[in-house]
Each structure stands twice: as structure tokens, then as C-alpha cells.
């Protein structure tokens, strides 16, 4: 793959992008027919589709407009903060989910879970543990 470290050296990002795309397409064309379809599917997977409630979509659009950024950038930054909180055990999904009937997932969101987080935030894992302890004592 052509990157900034390639012999072409330091290029304008737009030129680099066009050449990278062309190189990827060229690689796919050179593959056996059976592999071409798989490679195209792989390339298309770079874009991921998630179902997001309307209330969150509206909030993202509002923040993006206020900050003068793309919605994708806003989503990336806010998710990064959420992931950081989750990993630091400052965010748990306590009280927000119920058992799923689908064999695919163990849990699904409770009705109004997203709105609740939007107003009250996520409970920390420590709080959740304290609540669990209280239930058993």
C-alpha cells in the first residue's frame, strides 16, 4: 500500500489518497476472480453502519454545527471519551439493559436507556458493585 513513507515521499494528502485508492484497485484487479469479490467486500467494510437513536443523532448534529466539525469527528471524540471512562471503570451499563431473547446477544437496551444516560450519565462500576453488595447483605 502506498503511504507517506513510500518512495514517492511527502505528498499532498489528496494526491496521496487518489494514488492509494488506485493502487488498491489495481491490486484487486490482479487477484484471481474468486478473491476479487472478497477483497472488494473487505474494502467496503471500512465504513461501518451502527443504528443510533434519533435523540443521539440530533445531539451529534447540534454539537457538530456548534463546533464547526463533521458529525463523524464529533462521534469519534465523544466515543473516545466514553471508551476511556468504560475502561477506567467509571462507566457501567447497570440498570440500562435487559436479557435478550435473541441468540445473537445476551443483552439489549431497556426502553429509555439512552435518554436516561443523556440526562444522568452512566453509573460507575464501583457504584454498581456497591449496589450489588447492598442487595446481598
Amino acid at each position, binding site marked *: 500500500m502506498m503511504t507517506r513513507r513510500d518512495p*514517492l515521499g*511527502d*505528498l499532498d494528502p*489528496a*494526491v496521496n489518497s*487518489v*494514488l492509494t*485508492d488506485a493502487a488498491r484497485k489495481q491490486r484487486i484487479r490482479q487477484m484471481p476472480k474468486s478473491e476479487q469479490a472478497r477483497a472488494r467486500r473487505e474494502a467496503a467494510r471500512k465504513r461501518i453502519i451502527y443504528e443510533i437513536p434519533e435523540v443521539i443523532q440530533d445531539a451529534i448534529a447540534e454539537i457538530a454545527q456548534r463546533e464547526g466539525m463533521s458529525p463523524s469527528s464529533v462521534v469519534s471524540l465523544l466515543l473516545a471519551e466514553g471508551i476511556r471512562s468504560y475502561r477506567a471503570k467509571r462507566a457501567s451499563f447497570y440498570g440500562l439493559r435487559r436479557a435478550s431473547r435473541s441468540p445473537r446477544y445476551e443483552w439489549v437496551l431497556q426502553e429509555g436507556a439512552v435518554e436516561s444516560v443523556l440526562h444522568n450519565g452512566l453509573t460507575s462500576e464501583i457504584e454498581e458493585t456497591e449496589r450489588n453488595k447492598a442487595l446481598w447483605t
Partner: protein
Amino acid sequence: MLSIAIANQKGGTGKTTTAVSLAHRFALDGYRSLLVDIDVQGHVAVALGLEKQPGVYQAVQWFQGVGNLLIVKARERLDILPSDKTTEPAKRVLAGLDFRERILEEVLNEVRDRYDVAFVDCAPSVDVLHVAALVAADYLLVPTRLDHLAIDGVSEVIGSLAEIRRKSGKGATLLGIIPTFLDRQTNETVVQLQALAKRFGRLVLPPVPVDTRLRECPAYGQTIWEYAPHSRSVTGIVNGSGKSVGGYLQITERIKEALR
């Protein structure tokens, strides 16, 4: 005032389209812009929906101390010094004058206080006005089609610039090369873009995709910003990651960044 010459000795590379598009974009962004047409075809005026006029001819007379410069208002904050077929005899007159290569420098000096930026749309030839443009301008932009002959034209114009700088001690600085008529379906286009990038690196600016709307807009006397502001020659093409790349909007931003 900053001045930018737009030149390539090869014809049909998108010089006039680039000059008109950039000059109007700068005007729309609040810069007082002047566009000087030194091509005998006078297509700058046509592209802006105006009549061709003997602006260069009058400039040569003004250079000899007769009459005034002919500058025409084209849009809000965008004026042009037009050209027409009389530019051809004007060049013959100019060839016999002393300090002829200084004519455009003198013209730009005369209007320096009235504009923030001036673009000079050169003809696809090496003549006295072409040399004068490279002497007068602060920067040079070279639009090129992505085929072997046009890219050879890039080398030629850069060679001319180097010679001018060596002989006169002044001349434009190469600001960038604009690949035009980018067609991702054609392997030759991509191969030539790669060759251009290998040779000129960061100087290669975002490419302008081939766009029918861009070809149509002069027929209506409109710039691409008026005729099809959301066309791909403005906003670029979507790459594999879903981002827009290339187009005149991105080129304008790159130029502003470079001049900052």
C-alpha cells in the same frame, strides 16, 4: 498585492478555467481580485459572460505613455483586464520596445493598491507576454492534463522560469502544479499522476476531476461557483474512506495555506 501567473506551454490543460475559478473563489472569499488575460483568444471575458475587449492592446499603449489601462468589472470584487485578437499585433509592437518583459510588472504595480490578489492567465505559447508574466508574478501555478505531452509542458514552463530567474535575477516562485481532467477509470491518468508526484512531490496540488459541468459553464457566462457549486470539480471525488479529495475548493485552501 500578491500576483499568481497560471501557465503551461501546452494548450488545453485548463489554464483559463483554473484562472477564472480561482479568481472568482478568492473574490467570493472577500479578496479584491484582478484577472489579467494575456491570451489572444480572450476567453477569460467569455467565461465570465463579458465581451472580448482590447485590454492588452491598450496596456501596450499605456506602457508607451498613451491612454489608460482598460479594466472591467466582472463580478463583486472581481475585475478583469481583458484580451482579444488585437493582442496579437500588440505583441508585435511590444517586441520592438525596450524593457518589454517589464510590461506586466508595470501594469500590476500601477493597480497594486486596488487589489489583494492578481491572477495572470497565460497563453499556451512562449512569447514576450509569457516571459513578462513570469517576470511580473510572485508565484506560478501550472495546470496540467494527466498525459505525457502535457506533463512535458510542465517541465518546459519550469525550465523557462529557471532561465528567466537566471537571466533577470527575478521571476515567480513555483507555487504548485494542478493536475486537471483526473479520470480514475483510465489507467494512464493514474500512471501520469504517479509520475508527476514522483517528480514534483508536495508541489503537486489536489487534482481536479474531469467534470462536464465545468465544460458547460462558460456557455452560460457563469463560473463553476455560480453554475454548479456542488459539482465534483468543486468538491472533489469521494475516496475509499468516504472523504472528498481534490477539486477547486481544496486547491483554493491549499493556495491560501501556502501564501499564509
